[in-house]
C-alpha cells in the first residue's frame, strides 16, 4: 500500500530567529526536502531613494547609515564619493585616511557580526559572544571618532565631520595585534571543527558563471574563484597606497565563503596597520566645499567594495540642491536573488546554512 503523502507549505519568517531581520521565505517542502522557495521581501522598505529626492545631499547621509546598518561607513562613503565625483571636490589626505580606517574597521565589525550569527545559525552559541566582544571594541573606537555606535553619520561631502581624538590612532594600532590573536583563536575553535566543516562543505554550491549571471558581488563572487575586488581593480580613495591581498577560494560553497570572509578580516587588519603608519600627523579634514552643495547637471555612478559586495550610487542631478534621482545598488539585494535556486532540493537544515552564508542585511535588501 502506498502511503498518501502531501507537500507542506512552511512559512519561515518574517519573525524567525535565523532570517536576520524581517525576511520571509515560503518553502514548499516534501518531508524535509525543499521543492520550492519563494522569498518575500519589503518588510523593512522605507523608501530611502524617494525620500532622498527631497533632501539636500548632506541630509541624505544619515539615511545611508540605515541601509546596511552593520557597515554604515561604507554607505556614507559611497554617497559622498558620488557627490564629490560629480562636483570634482578634492578630499584632503588626512580625511581620506580617516575614511579608510573607519571603513576597514567597519568591514571587520561587519564580518564579525556575520561570523557570530552564522555560527549561531549553525547551533554554536559561544562564537557569537566572542565576535561581539571584539566588535564592541571596534564600535567603541568608531564611537570615539564619530559619536555614534551604529549609525555614524561621520562622512561629509569633501571630508569627514570630526577629526580623530588624541591617542585614537594608537588605540587602533593596539587593536590590530589583539584582533589577530583573537582571529587565531576563532580558527582554532571553529574552522577546524569537524561538525562545522561537515555542515558547510559542498553546501550551497554555485559556479563562477552562475555567480556572474546572477550579478553576485563581494565574497559571494570571490568564493567561486573570480578575483574581483574594487579596492584593487578600480581603486578609489587611497586604496592604491596599501599592500593587501584579495582572498579568493574556488569552492563556491558555504565553506569557501566562510574562508573568504575570515581571510578578509586579516587583510583589513593589514590595511589598518599600514594606514596607521602612514597617517599624516596634521592637516585639514575638510576640503574646499562650496557653502551650498549643488551637483552640476548630469549623472554619475560610482561603486565601491562594501563588506557585502559592490555598493553603487547613481545620482542624476538637474543642478539643484537635491538630487533629481538617486539610486543605490545595494549588494545584499542582488546577492539574495540566487537564494531560490540554491535552496531547491536542499534539506531544511541547509536553508539556514545557505541563507546565512550569503550574508544579507535586511535594511539593505529592502532599501
Amino acid at each position, binding site marked *: 500500500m502506498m502511503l498518501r503523502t502531501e507537500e507542506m507549505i512552511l512559512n519561515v519568517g518574517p519573525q524567525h530567529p535565523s532570517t536576520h531581520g524581517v525576511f520571509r521565505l515560503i518553502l514548499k517542502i516534501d518531508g*524535509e526536502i525543499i521543492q520550492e522557495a519563494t522569498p518575500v521581501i519589503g518588510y523593512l522598505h522605507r523608501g530611502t531613494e524617494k525620500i532622498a529626492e527631497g533632501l539636500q545631499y548632506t541630509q541624505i547621509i544619515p539615511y545611508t547609515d540605515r541601509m546596511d546598518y552593520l557597515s554604515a561607513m561604507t554607505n556614507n562613503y559611497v554617497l559622498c564619493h558620488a557627490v564629490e565625483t560629480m562636483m570634482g571636490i578634492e578630499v584632503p589626505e588626512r580625511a581620506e585616511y580617516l575614511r579608510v580606517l573607519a571603513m576597514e574597521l567597519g568591514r571587520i565589525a561587519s564580518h564579525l557580526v556575520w561570523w557570530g550569527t552564522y555560527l549561531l545559525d549553525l*547551533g554554536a552559541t559561544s562564537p557569537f559572544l566572542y565576535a561581539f566582544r571584539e566588535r564592541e571594541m571596534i564600535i567603541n573606537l568608531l564611537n570615539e571618532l564619530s559619536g555614534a555606535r551604529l549609525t555614524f553619520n561621520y562622512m561629509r561631502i569633501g571630508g569627514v565631520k570630526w577629526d580623530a581624538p588624541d591617542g585614537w590612532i594608537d588605540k587602533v594600532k593596539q587593536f590590530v595585534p589583539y584582533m589577530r590573536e583573537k582571529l587565531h583563536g576563532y580558527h582554532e575553535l571553529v574552522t577546524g571543527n569537524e561538525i562545522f566543516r561537515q555542515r558547510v562543505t559542498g553546501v550551497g554550491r554555485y559556479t563562477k558563471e552562475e555567480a556572474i549571471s546572477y550579478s553576485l558581488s563581494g565574497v559571494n563572487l570571490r568564493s567561486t574563484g573570480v578575483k574581483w575586488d574594487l579596492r584593487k581593480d578600480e581603486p578609489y580613495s587611497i586604496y592604491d597606497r596599501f599592500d593587501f591581498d584579495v582572498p579568493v577560494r574556488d569552492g563556491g560553497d558555504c565553506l569557501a565563503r566562510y574562508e573568504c570572509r575570515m581571510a578578509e578580516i586579516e587583510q583589513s587588519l593589514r590595511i589598518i596597520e599600514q594606514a596607521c603608519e602612514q597617517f599624516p600627523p596634521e592637516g585639514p579634514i575638510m576640503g574646499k566645499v562650496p557653502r551650498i552643495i549643488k551637483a552640476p547637471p548630469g549623472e554619475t555612478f560610482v561603486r565601491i567594495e562594501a563588506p557585502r559586495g559592490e555598493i553603487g550610487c547613481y545620482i542624476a542631478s538637474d543642478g539643484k540642491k537635491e538630487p533629481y534621482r538617486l539610486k543605490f545598488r545595494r549588494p545584499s539585494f542582488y546577492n539574495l536573488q540566487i537564494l531560490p535556486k540554491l535552496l531547491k532540493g536542499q534539506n531544511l537544515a541547509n536553508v539556514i546554512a545557505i541563507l546565512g552564508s550569503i550574508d544579507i542585511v535586511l535594511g539593505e535588501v529592502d532599501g
Partner: protein
Amino acid sequence: MMEQWLESTPSWSNIALFFGLGALLLAVVLAFVTYGILAERKVMGFMQGRIGPNQVGGRFGLLQTVADVLKLLLKEDTIPKAADRPLYVLAPIIAFTPSFMVLAVLPFTDSFRFADIGVGLLYYIAVSGLTTIGVVAGGWASNNKYALLGGMRAAAQMISYEIPLVMSALGVVLLAGSMNLVDIVAAQKDVWFIFAQPLAFLIFLIAAVAELNRTPFDLPEAESELVAGFHVEYSGFRWAFFMLAEYVYLFAMAALVTILFLGGWHPVAFLGWIPGAVWFALKFCAVVFVLIWFRATFPRVRADQLMEFAWKVLLPLSLVNIVLTAVVKAWFF
C-alpha cells in the same frame, strides 16, 4: 535496606515512609535541576566571557532559577485553538513521568538506592524510551508545522541513538556479568570500566548526548531552524515540564555514566576515607560539566548526518566492541 521495607508487612508507617522517601528523591532531583540550570548558565557564562545570573539571590544568582520557575507558574496557560486538546495536555506528563521513574533504579551509594532490580539497566533504557512518545505527541498535538518537524526529528533521533546506547552498554554488561546496576558498580572495584571499555565509553557518551537532545545533537529543538522544535506552542508550566524532563534526564544520564563507566561510588586509589557519596557526586558533576562544555563549544549536526553517524559509525563500532569484549572475556578470564 529497601528490600526489608518492601517485604515487611504493610502498615501506615511503611506507606508514609515510602512516600516520604519518594518525596525526598523528588526534592533532591528538583534541587539538582534548579542548581544544574544555574551551573549551566554560570559555566557557559564563564566560557563565553559573560557573568551569567548575578541579580536574583545574591551575586551568584542563587535564586534565579527559582524566580524563573515562579514566573512560569504565573504565566497564562495557553492552548492553541487548533491543537488536539487531550493529547496536548497529556504530552508533557508523558514526557516527564518516565524521566522520574528511571531514577528509582540508580544506586547513588552502596546503601542509598530505591529499587535493586535484576535488570536495572534494561529498565532504565526501556522506560526512558517512553519519553519519545511524549515528545512526538506534543509535536503532533500542537498542530504547528515547526513542532511537527521537531517531533519527527526527535523520534528519529531518539530511536536511532538508543541502539548504539544499548549496544555500547552491552560491553559493560558482558564484563560485569549482570544487568543489575549495583553489581555493575561492584565489578568496577579494581578497574573502572572507562579503562576496560574506552570505546564503549565514547560511544555511550555520544549516544547519551543525543538521547538528551543536547548540543551538538539538539536538532529536535534547533532554535535557529525550527524556532523551538516540538515545544514551540507550549508555554508556562507545560513547557516547564518538558524542560524539567530534559534536565532530570541530564541528572539520570550523568548518574548512569558514573555508574556504568566511572566506578560509581568507588574511590580513587588512596582516598578511600572520603565517603562514597562524595565520590559519586564528584564524578557525576564532572560528567555534567563535560556536557555543559559540549554545549558551549560545538555547532549542531545536520539531521541526515546525524542518522548516518548513528547507523554507519556508532552502531558498527559498538558491535565490534561487543565482539572484542566477548572474545577477550572468553579467552582470558
